[in-house]
């Protein structure tokens, strides 16, 4: 019976905490090395996408139901925050939570509507919510700015450095929270629902509750991120609800490795950086993204994380189960 003490004992917990601790330290200390505001803004974007990809992963990576409309939550909260700021003068410490609550309610809505749906049907309905919101934004020129969106939103902080730290700390909190949530019984239950919902129900799990709660958490986090983005850009537009954003977030999580929380972090950083560095190629970067996703799905469906951890295991001869 050797080994199972170790698998569940405190050593494993501290090992994981260490890894994430190092990551957090790098994030917090990076501005000592990186001073150029251009890079700080780029890293802000990375933080933003990490939060989006990880929140997406909590739902879709674990339950296996691919959400094609994450932008519904992002934009819903983003616009909510912008409106509250522009009309009521609320600042970010109020708009972000408000956005999160609205997004959670959106998550409740979609979660309940999609309860009995799986696979492509689930994907289709989630897509529809996003698309409907997008179209609604486009036609509502008077109240919601139409194609132009809403400008003049109060800024998040007065410098790229401020934005960097705000988003960085938020990201670290989200990553830590989601990671340990995923390794807890909650995560295991979600995975069981994704593996075999019938068996999960047959083992006494209230799958309805868990699916809806996962939706709400995923949505709320994405929503707060959306509101944060609204302040940082000082603007919201219908493109925040567009399916290309949903697709982008999805691809980041898939390339990095769905169902792990860690994978999406890598995917988000990687694709955001690639996006930037290939800016000169214009629209072709999406070509590379999608090409990358195709390659990943065909050859390494579990994403970068799997490739890396297999390589790591081969190097260290470590036969333990993956992180």
């Amino acid at each position: 019976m050797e080994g199972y003490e170790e698998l569940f004992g405190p050593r494993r917990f501290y090992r994981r905490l260490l890894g994430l601790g190092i990551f957090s330290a790098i994030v917090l200390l990076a501005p000592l090395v990186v001073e150029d505001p251009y890079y700080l803004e780029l890293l802000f974007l990375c933080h933003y996408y990490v939060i989006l990809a990880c929140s997406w992963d909590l739902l879709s990576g674990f339950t296996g139901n691919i959400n094609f409309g994450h932008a519904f939550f992002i934009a819903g909260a983003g616009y909510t925050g912008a409106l509250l700021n522009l009309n009521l003068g609320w600042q970010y410490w109020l708009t972000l939570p408000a956005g999160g609550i609205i997004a959670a309610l959106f998550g409740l809505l979609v979660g309940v509507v999609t309860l009995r749906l799986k696979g492509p049907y689930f994907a289709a309905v989630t897509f529809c919510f996003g698309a409907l919101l997008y179209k609604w934004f486009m036609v509502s020129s008077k109240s919601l700015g139409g194609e132009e969106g809403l400008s003049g939103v109060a800024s998040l902080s007065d410098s790229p450095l401020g934005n960097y730290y705000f988003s960085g700390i938020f990201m670290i909190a989200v990553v830590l929270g989601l990671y340990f949530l995923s390794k807890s019984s909650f995560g295991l239950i979600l995975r069981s629902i994704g593996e075999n919902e019938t068996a999960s129900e047959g083992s006494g799990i209230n799958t309805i509750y868990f699916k809806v709660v996962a939706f709400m958490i995923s949505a709320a986090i994405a929503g707060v991120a959306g509101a944060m983005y609204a302040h940082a850009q000082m603007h919201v537009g219908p493109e925040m609800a567009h399916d290309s954003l949903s697709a982008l977030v999805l691809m980041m999580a898939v390339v990095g490795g769905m169902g792990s929380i860690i994978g999406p972090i890598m995917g988000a950083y990687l694709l955001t950086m690639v996006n930037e560095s290939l800016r000169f190629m214009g629209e072709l970067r999406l070509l590379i993204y999608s090409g990358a996703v195709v390659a990943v799905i065909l050859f390494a469906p579990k994403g970068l994380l799997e490739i890396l951890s297999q390589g790591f295991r081969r190097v260290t001869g470590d036969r333990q189960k993956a992180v």
Partner: protein
Amino acid sequence: MTALVSIFVLGTIWGAVYSLIAVGFTLIFGVAGIVNLSHGAFYMLGAYLAYTFMTLLNINVPLSALMAVAAVALIGMAIDYLGIRPLRERHAYVLILTLALALFFQELMYGIYGPYGKPVKSFVVGEIVLGGVYISYQKLITLFVAAAFVILLWLFIKKTKTGKSISAVAQNKDAAILMGIQYEKAYRMTMGISAGLAAIAGVFISPILEAVPTMWSFPLFKAFAIVIIGGLGSLEGAIIASLLLGYSETLVSFLFSANYADMVYLIAIILVLVLRPTGILSKGRRA
């Protein structure tokens, strides 16, 4: 009165175009059990190839159309062989893969042709007047071609040996295997046919709507709505639902605006899946 005729005619034309795209989609869904999100890309490729052959290379219309459709059919089969076949049982991955492929093609078109719409000359110039409404010949041809091919497909599935074997695989793959039907071939052929049909739609629509790199998404999701309403794998259902969608969109567009018309299929998908997860006209196949 003119309005009614206009709505009816336009609705029928669009219904016919949608049905070309939707029957292929429902076939794949019904036969291989997969959702091919790159289906809309076949439509798009048809349009772009029509542009390339007809406008750029000045090849005559019939030959261009033939080449475009054949090329897209082959691409479809290649995608099935290389991409989908290894992943048959993993539906989530097929979804993501085909979505990525669709985006890939979109960007490829951006790269090769640029973001502006590419025009294609109408195959037959001119219009007729029907009930006080001007209808271009191009639209009429599209209608007839669409109807013709849908009927041809229906005959193929119901009457020919190959068609019936495809239908058999759709109903019960294991039984089909026992009867010696090669299901892989059936899948690939179905993919080729459905891609070809979508391409036909693209070719004939290209003079009406310009070819743009994002044109793959709306027919895809509308086809999805149609398939859900009409029932998976049901040809008849797809045809009826296509017409329904064509009419309702045209009606809404007339009463409100084109933007709202674009919301019809979205709301339809949500309503149908929530209220009757097996589809309205289906034979009750589990969603």
